[in-house]
């Protein structure tokens, strides 16, 4: 369980976010994570709730459920993070719900928990793509160029986040009179 430099770590995540296109030779970029292991594997895209409980909407929950990658070995991989800043994998994986894809990224093991950061995904019979679906869709929903500074800093410009920070404060303690 080691600590890594926050800014250095965020820099590599940001670098990952910039890799919007991927080629077949592209391998995962190291992020210096605990117990990090680069990996490329085939797996079925699944909705974790479905696998564990049998509650299975046909679309894997339309991007609102926790997503996983089910390997032929039976291992259920928690796809916890994509290549963008502060973003998860649902929008990268939901289009392939129930399909087998090739996933490329990093396993990390810490506190006894093994998770996977998805950097690239290759659907069957299609090209590799960078796993940055959230930020692409966020830009599209606002008719912004993906290279716009507002998009790069989506987390500071998102309407929901801004409204909650107005209400709660950055520390979440505004109602108690504590603000930065």
């Amino acid at each position, binding site marked *: 369980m080691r600590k890594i430099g*926050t800014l250095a770590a965020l820099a590599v995540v940001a670098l990952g976010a910039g890799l919007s296109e991927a080629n077949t030779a592209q391998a995962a970029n190291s992020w210096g994570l605990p117990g990090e292991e680069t990996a490329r594997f085939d797996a079925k895209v699944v909705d974790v709730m479905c696998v564990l409980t049998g509650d299975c909407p046909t679309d894997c929950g339309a991007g609102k459920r926790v997503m996983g990658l089910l390997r032929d070995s039976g291992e259920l991989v928690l796809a916890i993070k994509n290549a963008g800043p502060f973003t998860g994998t649902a929008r990268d994986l939901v289009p392939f719900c129930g399909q087998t894809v090739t996933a490329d990224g990093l396993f990390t093991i810490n506190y006894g*928990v093994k998770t996977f950061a998805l950097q690239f995904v290759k659907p069957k019979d299609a090209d590799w793509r960078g796993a940055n679906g959230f930020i692409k869709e966020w830009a599209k929903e606002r008719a912004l160029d993906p290279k716009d500074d507002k998009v790069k800093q989506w987390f500071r410009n998102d309407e929901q986040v801004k409204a909650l920070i107005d209400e709660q404060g950055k520390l*979440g303690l505004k109602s108690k009179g504590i603000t930065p």
Partner: protein
Amino acid sequence: MRRDLILGLGLALALGGGPALAADAPAPKRVTVTGEIIDSWCYLSEIMYAQGSAHHQCALWCARGGVPVGILGEDEQVYVVLKMQDDSAVLENPGIMKLQTNKVTVEGNLYERDSVKYLAIDTIIDDQGIVNYSHEEFDIQPFGE
């Protein structure tokens, strides 16, 4: 009748086979968990200090960005939230974002699979709000503003 049953089973498998997968899974355990609602990625990756008020803003960012929300239990275990009360749409969920960083006590079904503890919460028994004033030591994570 028998033919219809076989056809029906075949159709169910062809349409995804979700229930068949679940049938292979062990039964869940009924649990009560007390802990802080966290951003699972920042905590597990140790990419920054990721507990309490210092990390509240970042936890909102990650929850909005679709990173799974977790609970860091008093037992120091991480529980990845799959369902909150009746809602399995837990990603980018405005209601769950409002609870971020709060200390809660919840009841639900625990599923353990391949080192991960998944929690389907059906009841929030207690919500104490934010009790960990970590900003006093760690400022605002990760950028200080």
